[in-house]
């Protein structure tokens, strides 16, 4: 059904240009603003072009899991709000939103950017749970990268609320940041025919042959991968896509 649009995009890519005039490896304007939700322990608004998402961090005190008595926990949740696109509906999450949430969660979790041992308050009894919720405000393409960037930026700005051992006082936040190391940066690379591109718009976001979401650490190693799209890729192409992601991650990293 989208054959014509796909051919148009590929024909433009062979001339190193896209529908909106950008180069295949060019990001739209990126902006990050933290502290956008005063009640959250940490928050960030990310805009990539007109795509906009807001992430917020909330912390709770829970009993640690029996098999990890000296560790707290982390959870990443993604909400695709119907207000951000005519294509999203209210109701239980569909496969796209579940995949988005789980890929974002893994990207952050597998980077070990939070040492969950440092979230322990009293072994076997109390530990912090960090929950990151990322909510979409406007979908103009490339939600994957915007959502990951927002989750990371919100996490980086998050502080512990006051805890007296029994009750949490959310109104009075400490200035103690969540101890973080190794922040991951996620770049999703899209393949059209033989061409690669990043940061798709709505039109480009639907009819690609395959995509690869790559989470990259500061040392250049990768900590999470997810392939999507209906076409298979050669091993060489998979490596090409990862290399492009690694390169572009340096640009994204400057923003956080």
């Amino acid at each position, binding site marked *: *059904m*989208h*054959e*014509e*649009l796909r051919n*148009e995009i590929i024909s*433009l890519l062979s*001339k190193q*240009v896209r*529908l*909106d*005039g*950008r180069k295949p490896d060019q990001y*739209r*304007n990126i902006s990050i603003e933290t502290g956008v939700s005063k009640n959250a322990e940490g928050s960030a608004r990310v805009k990539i*072009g007109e795509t906009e998402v807001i992430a917020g961090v909330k912390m709770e005190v829970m009993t640690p899991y029996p098999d990890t008595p000296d560790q707290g926990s982390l959870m990443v949740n993604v909400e695709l709000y119907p207000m951000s696109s005519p294509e999203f509906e209210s109701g239980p999450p569909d496969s796209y939103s579940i995949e988005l949430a789980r890929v974002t969660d893994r990207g952050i979790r597998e980077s070990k950017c939070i040492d969950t041992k440092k979230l322990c308050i009293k072994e076997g009894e109390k530990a912090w749970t960090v929950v990151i919720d990322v909510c979409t405000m406007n979908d103009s393409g490339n939600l994957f990268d915007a959502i990951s960037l927002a989750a990371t930026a919100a996490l980086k700005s998050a502080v512990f609320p006051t805890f007296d051992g029994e009750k949490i006082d959310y109104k009075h936040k400490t200035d103690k940041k969540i101890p973080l190391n190794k922040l991951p940066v996620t770049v999703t690379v899209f393949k059209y025919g033989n061409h690669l591109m990043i940061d798709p718009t709505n039109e480009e976001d639907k009819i690609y042959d395959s995509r690869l979401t790559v989470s990259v650490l500061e040392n250049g190693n990768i900590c999470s991968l997810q392939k999507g799209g209906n076409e298979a890729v050669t091993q060489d192409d998979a490596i090409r896509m990862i290399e492009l992601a690694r390169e572009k991650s340096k640009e994204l990293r400057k923003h956080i």
Partner: protein
Amino acid sequence: MGEIVVKEKDVVVPGETLATGMDFLPSFGTYREGDKILASRLGLVNVEGKVIKLVPLSGVYHPKRGDTIIGFVREILLAGWRVDTNSAYSAVLGLKDASPEFIARGADLTKYFEIGDYIMAKIINVTSQNLVDLTLNGPGLRKLTGGRKIMVNANKVPRIIGKQGSMVSMIKDFTNCRILVGQNGVVWISGEDPAKELLAVETIKKIERESHLSGLTDAIKAFLEQHKDGITVPSDN
């Protein structure tokens, strides 16, 4: 007696007072309440003699008889095709209106139009329940292949076309692109040079943004001249 309390081309909000007294006549986008005329939507004030109306600035397209639109086939029906019109109401293109040749019932309709095909069609009827009928019998009406489509605010289409088509002709001349504008806000553009195609796209978007400002024709002419070799870098990131 009475006076108009707003100026021509003012942006007014729902419920805003436009005129007092019984001298004036409310038209599209306005209504009378007692001795006042008020706005019944967001719009631009337009006064002609004693008639006050609003030019709408926004809003989804509403199918009208006689409109020429660009839509795509959503579904193959028993006796025709269901067509998306970029509005709240889909349309039906029936067998007898789809082609100058006779199409028999039971024929393989995908031979004519498949799901996803774009067509330029004319609305021949809209019922009270907003059921819409289309025809392809008419000059210029046909399946559209190739090119790219952009969506614009349907309220801006008259400005994009211009008086007697003068605005869209100017864009076609400068960019060497074929351009078809549907009343429903779907615009089809096809050119050889991607940079000139992009110039056509950006020019149309500029008209959409600035349609309510005066001096539009000159501003658009200047924009086209400034970028006469086409656009290779996006105008806003």
